């Protein structure tokens, strides 16, 4: 069996607004559009994914928050409606998700072997979080591949941003071992924004783009700093300054997604492909990808 590998890593923010704006048949509300800079970026990344041979999408989501260890989806199918608890007016999405349980169990076992507290989630009534659904829908609207969802252990809340970084890195290394042993070709997804301070009011028409802007300039400056460093391949440095960024911008990287993915990919020193940046209800959202294959790596924006 050939050694498994990560064929792409994606920073894929999950504001439900982008699915709402797409008007897919799975989502109940109707929109007049909005947030095109993000959606068009997602469209382009989704087209790239179509040209990549892969078996599974593995996503770490901050909207499955666990305080007791790291959990993995452990049943083959989840069919339900996902209603966003924050934006139920925008996201009521009927989903039918296939899970690669074999890979999930392998990751669970590898993480446990590395000393990480773990749990398989086997309750058939469990509702898959909307972070997973939004990121996966935008990357693969046909849902043609199975997924694995990994919960976000809230070590930032319980300990510190630095401890989160260390634990997420350990999880990333364990996940990489499991992928290599599986022989599978895997796309990793860190499902989160950059700066994450929201407005606490919403426009009467949520997709009214005349109302959309970053929460404040400080958030924007931080976001641009991170995007520039990613362009320059400084992923190790980005992870090192994440604790400060999280402190300053309430960055959603606090859930461990980017730290986990960069560790799993061995901290790429090549340029990230940047697909878009836009604010959503004040938060800063960048879509980026890391392509280990130099022949297909490109400068997108």
């Amino acid at each position, binding site marked *: 069996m050939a050694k498994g590998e990560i064929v792409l890593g994606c920073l894929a923010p999950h504001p439900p607004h982008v699915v709402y704006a797409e008007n897919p048949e799975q989502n109940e509300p109707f929109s007049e559009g909005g947030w095109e800079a993000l959606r068009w970026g997602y469209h382009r990344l989704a087209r790239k994914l179509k040209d990549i041979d892969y078996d599974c999408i593995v996503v770490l989501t901050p909207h*499955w*928050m*666990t*305080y*007791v*260890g790291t*959990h993995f989806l452990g049943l083959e199918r989840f069919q*339900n*409606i*996902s*209603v966003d*608890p*924050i*934006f*139920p007016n925008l996201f*009521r999405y009927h989903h039918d998700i296939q899970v690669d349980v074999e890979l999930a169990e392998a990751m669970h076992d590898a993480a446990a072997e590395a000393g990480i*507290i773990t*749990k398989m*989630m*086997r*309750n058939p*009534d*469990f*509702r898959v979080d909307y972070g997973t659904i939004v990121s996966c829908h935008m990357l693969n609207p046909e849902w043609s591949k199975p997924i694995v969802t990994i*919960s976000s*252990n*809230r*070590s930032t*809340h*319980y300990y510190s941003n630095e401890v989160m970084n260390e634990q997420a890195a350990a999880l990333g290394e364990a996940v990489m071992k499991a992928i290599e042993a599986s022989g599978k070709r895997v796309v990793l997804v860190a499902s989160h924004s950059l700066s994450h301070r*929201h*407005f*606490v*009011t*919403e426009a009467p028409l949520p997709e009214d783009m005349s109302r959309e802007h970053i929460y*404040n300039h400080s958030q924007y400056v931080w976001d641009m700093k991170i995007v520039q460093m990613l362009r320059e391949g400084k992923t190790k440095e980005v992870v090192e300054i994440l604790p400060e960024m999280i402190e300053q911008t309430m960055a959603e990287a606090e859930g461990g997604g980017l730290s986990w993915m960069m560790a799993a990919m061995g901290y790429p020193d090549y340029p990230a492909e940047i697909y878009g940046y836009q604010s959503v*209800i004040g938060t800063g959202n960048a879509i980026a990808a890391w392509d280990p294959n130099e022949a297909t790596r490109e400068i997108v924006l």
Partner: protein
Amino acid sequence: MSEEPEIVLGFYVPPHPHPLLAPEQNEGWGRLREAFDTCRQRIEETDADLLLIYSTVWPSIVGHQIQAHPKPVFTHVDDDFHFLGSMPYEFRMDSEYAEKFKDSCEARGLHARTVAYDGFPIDTGSVVALKLLNPDNRIPACIVSSNVYSNRAEQIVLGKAARDAMSELGKKVVVVVVASLSNRMFTEHIDPSDDRIHSAKDDEWNRKILEFFEDGRLEDISQLSRDIHGQIRVSKVVAYKPAWWMAATMGQHNNYDGEVLAYEALHGAGGAVIQLTPAKGGVGDKEFDEDDVEYYHGDRSVLDKGML
């Protein structure tokens, strides 16, 4: 319309699913369940016509969300404790009160909205409270969220808005706050028989807060919220808010008969079932120097001042 709302009882209950799903697995969880059952009986003995829940585990961002679906039906599973089982529910909500509460919030400057969507994810704490305190849906209920960015002023105004709506509709109300005391859980899976409060410090603080509750000193606890947050609350949100809301909703005083029906560990967190009954006499003679708030003015635009 009466000027002062009629609040017949107040309860402070924990958000964890253990008393509902696994009371037999740990003696303490069983005692919490018995305390819930006692509260249920006492609620049934009242002629309350609304059960209003403030849940610390229903976070909101866009203002304050108020559950208004007349009959929400779903099967809920907890993110952490999914292995304890599922929580199927069908509740009866007071949509009229929900709408009035929202209007009252807006009249006091708060951003608020009702939610009434099939499949909306009602949080673990609210599901546990409603299934154990009101299992037959005898009393219609309402649930209000906890805004992640809100702080003292906003919470107090939110409580006053809840009172306004009660008064306008002439409701007799049972107020329920869903919150832990200390909220630090063990970060590893434990044998249920090994459960205990996470640390001696958390336990000591919890017991001090329980003394206040037993003396009916709700307003004093409200005034101590910032200290409580700093000492025994994991910094998931900006502040320990439930006492602010509960005190503002029940009337900002210390005139209660307090009873701690149970205090136990829930995977390390402090879980207590507490009853407050409005009474004539009270404890304490303090006045406080933090200003009372009637209207919420929103952001103060600090960031826009002094810009170059």
